[in-house]
């Protein structure tokens, strides 16, 4: 579904939906050519928006001829989309999302479930040095932890690549977060419902910066320890933030979590376009 903004030059002679063109002409406009574009005296926009695809839906009226009802765009095929041959001959467009959450909540597993490549990670065994510093509580049997950051790469289509960065789990690597989050579309905050307090820092961080977030409750051992509503209440999460259950080991589950996030991002972008 492509969003088409209001035409900036909608004041021109606009045919309504009832006025079907007759032989390419509008009733009531005899031989005058159909004016597509701004009325005289207004500057035509340099580039039509959206630049590549024809408008597929129109809201209210527009200044062009009535559009044939556009089919719902099919999923972008793996090969280069035919209507956008100009976009990429060279490198793909990189996009980025961030996976965050408390220590030992499954960020690395999440990334590795969907990544095309083995996640490039910098993991080290927990050693006696980290004992007492990295408190993983009593619920985890985890023996490694991400000491820097890890990331995966998903080739979405021929010219789009999605990078998924896991933030370092420990507070002492917080300085890396700003770099990781700059330019990110949004963030998945992974939650272990048995250790809710671990994710407060991440939630606060993204809320402060106005970054789109989806809260994903990881199902350890394949089941939820608490209901999603309980988690939402306990974390006092806004109603516009989705709370979903995820099994970080399952590619499908991870995929739907990312889609839930992208939905939030898209909604936000559409609201922004509508405002401007």
């Amino acid at each position, binding site marked *: *579904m*492509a*969003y088409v903004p209001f035409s900036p030059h909608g004041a021109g002679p606009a045919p309504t939906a009832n006025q079907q063109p007759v032989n390419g002409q509008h009733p009531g406009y005899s031989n005058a050519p159909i004016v597509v574009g701004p009325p005289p005296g207004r500057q035509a926009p340099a580039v039509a928006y*959206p*630049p*590549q*695809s024809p408008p597929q839906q129109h809201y209210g009226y527009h200044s062009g001829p009535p559009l044939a009802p556009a089919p719902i*765009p099919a*999923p*972008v095929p793996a090969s280069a*989309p035919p209507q956008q041959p100009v976009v990429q001959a*060279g*490198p*793909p*467009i*990189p*996009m*980025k999302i961030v996976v965050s959450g408390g220590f030992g909540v499954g960020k690395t597993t999440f990334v*590795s479930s*969907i990544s*095309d*490549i*083995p*996640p*490039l*990670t*910098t*993991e080290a065994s927990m050693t006696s040095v980290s004992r007492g510093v990295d408190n993983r509580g009593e619920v985890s049997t985890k023996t*490694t932890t991400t000491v*820097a*950051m890890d*990331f995966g*790469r*998903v080739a*979405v*289509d021929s010219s*789009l*690549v*999605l*990078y998924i*960065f896991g933030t370092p789990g420990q507070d002492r690597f917080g300085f890396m977060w700003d*770099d*990781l989050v*700059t*330019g990110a*579309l*949004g963030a998945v905050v992974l939650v272990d419902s048995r250790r809710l307090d671990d994710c407060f820092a991440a939630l606060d961080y993204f809320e402060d910066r106005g970054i*789109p977030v989806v809260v994903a409750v990881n199902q350890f051992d394949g089941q939820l320890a608490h209901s999603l509503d309980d988690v939402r209440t306990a974390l006092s999460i806004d109603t516009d933030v989705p709370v979903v259950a995820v099994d970080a080991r399952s590619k499908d589950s991870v*995929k739907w979590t*990312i*889609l839930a996030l*992208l*939905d939030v*991002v*898209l909604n*936000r*972008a*559409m609201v*922004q*376009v509508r405002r401007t």
Partner: protein
Amino acid sequence: MDDPGVPNRDVFRPFLPTAPRVHHDVGSRQVGDAPSGVRAYLITGGRASAPLAYETILVPKSRVDGSTETFERARIMQVCRSGDALSVAELAARLRLPIGVVRVLASDLVNAGLLSAHSSENTSSDVTLLTRLIHGVRAL
């Protein structure tokens, strides 16, 4: 991205002195040897920040060989030249250098006209791009 020379392990450990040796045979040189022991701040000349994002994709410019570059810069050029369009983060993982170091050096190479940097501005407000992304992810 199959590197035949890389042992099939899920985890790279770039910064650790005990890291297993990972070889990427690029050209005539072995890239990815054990860390040299040179401090990161010496490699970057003390600089810590650069305008490149972690996901920025680096591509060598044609008709530039970069053979006059030395040390880490030369290794970055070699890996970039190996074919895949790699991001700053992937470069760092392949070279087993801290990502902050690679970012500074790559930014130097971009400024010197050896690499071109490809990133996308304002992706989060580009409805067309986001729609494509959603369709693509759904089809995974």
